[in-house]
């Protein structure tokens, strides 16, 4: 049985639908990500689970209990906000202890200490939020939510205000803590890379609907439509009419074809060892080369449209700007949408 069930949840403001018949099921301990552009409804869905927004239709269940109409404090969910929402008048210790104090728990001190230890904030107990760095504030917010031992942890873009390096290390740490506590987590982000690294399951949202769900590799390698293909990777999405013309073939049917930039290969014109059995070949000219960290991205202009081709950057530039090339397109990597 699923641990978290979101059953046909619908919500609208005035005459605009924000959540359109959303159904999601999560297993206990799963790390799920709601991924989408801003305005797609992902944060609203998260806030609905927290009880900070009402839903118009549908039910939300956690651990078999219908929480749809419960107040936030009765739901046993923890949440970390994008802007942390730490209490500025309280120290780190008091921030983390706040929920336990409200609940009138007995062993507050030891539980808070344990949490402080877990998020690596020893020595900062008496600091105030404004004396901490962004990353440290984030840890406090996380500890404050986790110390309550919530059934579900909700994370609303918790890392998006941090710089890249701290972000990467916090991603890892968040994942470690999540696994260690085996806590069911729903993470909201607009960053597909972050979603890929962290999630067990990704729900791609667009215009208030879940358009695709699956493991990161499923989502990445077999997008169901153009939106997912474009949003998830830097897929080359090409009109099939155009593509047929380029590869001079009529054997493929559909509307559009999506091809990942890293499955394409470039071969200099003149080399004649082309495997035409497995690949289509498109003629083109290198228009631009850009370096994205360890990846070299070639923009190749063809007769009809431009293609992006990614190479791992291990031997320096292999092709110069303006060079004429053949693009090898592996037939089995073409995804027909």
């Amino acid at each position, binding site marked *: 049985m699923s641990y978290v069930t979101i059953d046909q949840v619908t919500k609208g403001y005035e005459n605009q639908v924000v959540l359109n018949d959303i159904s999601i099921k999560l297993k206990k301990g799963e790390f799920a990500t709601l991924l989408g552009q801003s305005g797609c409804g992902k944060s609203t869905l998260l806030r609905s689970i*927290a*009880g*900070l927004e009402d839903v118009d239709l549908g039910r939300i269940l956690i651990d078999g209990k219908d929480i749809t109409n419960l*107040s*936030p*404090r009765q*739901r046993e*969910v*923890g*949440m970390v*906000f994008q*802007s942390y*929402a*730490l*209490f*500025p*008048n*309280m*120290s780190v*210790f*008091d921030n983390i*202890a*706040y*929920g336990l*104090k*409200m*609940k*009138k728990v*007995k*062993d*507050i*001190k030891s539980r808070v200490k344990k949490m402080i230890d877990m998020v690596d904030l020893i020595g900062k*107990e*008496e600091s*105030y939020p404004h004396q901490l760095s962004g990353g440290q504030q984030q840890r406090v917010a996380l500890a*404050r*939510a986790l110390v*309550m031992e919530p059934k579900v942890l909700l994370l609303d873009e918790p890392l998006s205000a941090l710089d890249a390096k701290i972000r990467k290390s916090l991603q890892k740490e968040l994942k470690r803590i999540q696994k260690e506590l085996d806590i069911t987590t729903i993470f909201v982000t607009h960053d597909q890379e972050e979603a890929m690294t962290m999630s067990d399951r990704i729900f791609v949202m667009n215009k208030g609907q879940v358009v695709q769900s699956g493991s990161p590799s499923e989502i990445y390698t077999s997008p169901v439509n153009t939106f997912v293909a474009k949003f998830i990777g830097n897929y080359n999405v090409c009109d099939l009419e155009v593509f047929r013309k380029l590869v001079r073939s009529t054997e493929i049917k559909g509307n559009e074809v999506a091809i990942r930039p890293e499955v394409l290969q470039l071969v200099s014109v003149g080399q004649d060892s082309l495997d035409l059995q497995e690949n289509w070949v498109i003629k083109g000219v290198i228009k631009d080369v850009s370096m994205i960290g360890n990846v070299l991205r070639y923009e190749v202009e063809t007769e009809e449209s431009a293609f992006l081709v990614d190479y791992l950057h291990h031997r320096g530039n292999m092709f110069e700007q303006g060079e004429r090339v053949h693009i090898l397109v592996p037939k089995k990597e073409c995804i027909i949408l």
Partner: protein
Amino acid sequence: MKSSLTIHKVIVGLLVIYLLIPLVGTFLFSIAGKWDHTILPESYTMKWYIELFQDERFYDAFQRTLFLIVMTVGLSVVIMIPTIFIITVYFSKWEGLLQAAAMLPYGIPPIVGAVGLIKIYSDGPIQIAGTPWILIGAYFITILPFMYQGIRNSLRTVNAVQLVNAAELLGATKFQAFRTVVFPNITSGILVSTLLSVALLFSEFAFANLLVGGRFETLQIYLADKLNSSGHLTSAIVITYYSVILLLTGAVLKLTFRNEKKPVVSNKKRILSFHKNTTLEGEK
């Protein structure tokens, strides 16, 4: 770079002089004996102050003004903080209405307001025209814009909505959330509005004169009365109540400043008391 800094200093200096001259002039006049054809007084005397401090009426007027201010500002704090909090956090669509209501006093001149108030409250169920209570009501409205802006801005600055959300998710009731995480963070903002209101009400004359006049002599009415007898004496009154406001403001600001400057100490105390509480609870 250096010359531009000098220009800044000169401008600031001129501004300070411009603002201080009337005050210094008033002060000098309040301690002046003979002063008619010289730049500075020819002789100095404390007799105006002595005369003022020997006048029972002055103390009575001062007391009445203080009473009005404390009542009005107290009432405003007690009523407006919860109101504005509830509206901003839970009924944000009505915020425009509240804002419009709070800005109304700017649109109505005291004379028009006073005439209307006297008409309404001289008969009917609430007959308070001519009593200090009508003045408190009118003052409540007078300071509404300051109180509203101050409280609302503080709530926005601390992102009260999100703090309440966070507290509620951690198991606090709405009231607990307000008391423990919102209120402590907006006190300095409220304090500023309160001080502004106090200063404003100290020098309020129009409403006091029109609504109660001589029946409940406030400081400003006393001042106006003395204006006919001696300019020196009125200067002494003005300087006296300026000093009182200054002392009051200074004291309050110093208190808050000290609180903000030493959070670690107060924090230590809080943690200690907090630990004590928990161990006691544990022992039970």
